[in-house]
């Protein structure tokens, strides 16, 4: 039973979909990096042994009744963490690409800076795993678009290695992008005048499974995210009918 242990309590969430080959290693790495910190795997409708592997490795599992997509999964984890009373949540991907040894630094930055979000960035000091030319071009485009909106440069706007505090949990529980959430989430934070920081982190190439990214999906991703950013800039709270704990898109 996961419960926050006093002030400054941390929960690590791991959204996962069909990651049976990597999930146990990710959980062991988290336990080794931050012993005693509860790990919550959010299973987005896996059809393989992800849930079994996660439980066997010692994690709690939040099983979604059907596939919601990355944003819906992460938001479910944020809602649960907020309800349980956690002060900080760090999200790490279930495919093993993020280095769990960076978690303590993300937490320290969250606690000391007072900002609402800390992003583990591959590009703060221009290192990280090899990124394709097309992906780099996309990231550069997002940086250009986000710079005037956020008022500062975000080096790695697509990073899924993110820590948030309780204020951000409250906001994201009510309003969170459902597909490709990383970039739009920054705009959601900006609308609340919240702050974010980046710290350099390493990223490893995927060890198991296959990336589902194709050129067509990349184009869809680019269009979807840019549209989502502009919609988030334009809209204000109360314009839409949103249930009390509904997704905010």
């Amino acid at each position, binding site marked *: *039973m996961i419960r926050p242990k006093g002030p400054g309590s941390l929960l690590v969430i791991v959204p996962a979909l069909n990651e049976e080959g990597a999930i146990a290693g990710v959980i062991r790495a988290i336990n080794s990096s931050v012993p005693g910190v509860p790990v919550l795997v959010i299973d987005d409708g896996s059809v393989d042994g992800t849930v079994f592997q996660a439980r066997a490795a010692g994690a*709690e599992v939040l099983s979604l009744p059907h596939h*919601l997509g990355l944003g819906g999964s992460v938001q*479910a984890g944020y*809602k649960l963490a907020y*309800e349980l009373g956690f002060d900080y949540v760090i999200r790490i991907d279930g495919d093993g690409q993020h280095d769990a040894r960076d978690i303590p630094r993300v937490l320290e930055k969250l606690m000391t800076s007072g900002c609402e979000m800390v992003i583990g960035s591959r590009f703060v000091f221009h290192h990280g795993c090899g990124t394709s030319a097309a992906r780099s071009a996309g990231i550069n485009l997002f940086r250009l678009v986000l710079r005037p909106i956020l008022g500062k440069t975000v080096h790695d706007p697509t990073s899924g290695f993110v820590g948030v505090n309780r204020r951000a949990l409250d906001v994201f529980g009510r309003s969170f992008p459902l597909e490709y959430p990383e970039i739009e989430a920054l705009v959601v934070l900006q609308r609340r005048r919240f702050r974010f920081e980046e710290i350099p982190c390493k990223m490893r190439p995927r060890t198991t499974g296959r990336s589902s990214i194709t050129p067509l999906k990349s184009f869809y991703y680019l269009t979807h995210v840019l549209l989502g950013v502009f919609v988030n800039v334009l809209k204000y709270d109360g314009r839409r009918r*949103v*249930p009390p*704990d*509904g997704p905010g898109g």
Partner: protein
Amino acid sequence: MEHLLDLTTALSLLLLVLVLASLRRAHIRVEYSVSWLVAAAALLFLSRSPGVLRVIGGLLGISNPPLAMLMISGGVFLLIFFRFSVIVSHLRDDNIALAQRVAILEFHIQSFRNHGN
């Protein structure tokens, strides 16, 4: 082009029959059938009323009644599709919120069970 009006009449009748049959079999809810029924009735009326079409066409700057019929039909269906996109978006939001709530409640129930054992 006059065939276009006859074709619109036939399609409007087909749409009316289709929607009414779907209503009878409970394949479509009444509140979602109203848009289609109103659209089908309006298109049926317009396709049989060249005089009215000429007036509307004149207002739109279109002298040819069948062409005006085509434009009006396109506009009506665009509006209906947009309305249903809004409805689907709300349903999707509600569905996601419900799925998350179900998952969280199941998590709490499981935790209490494990804690009780």
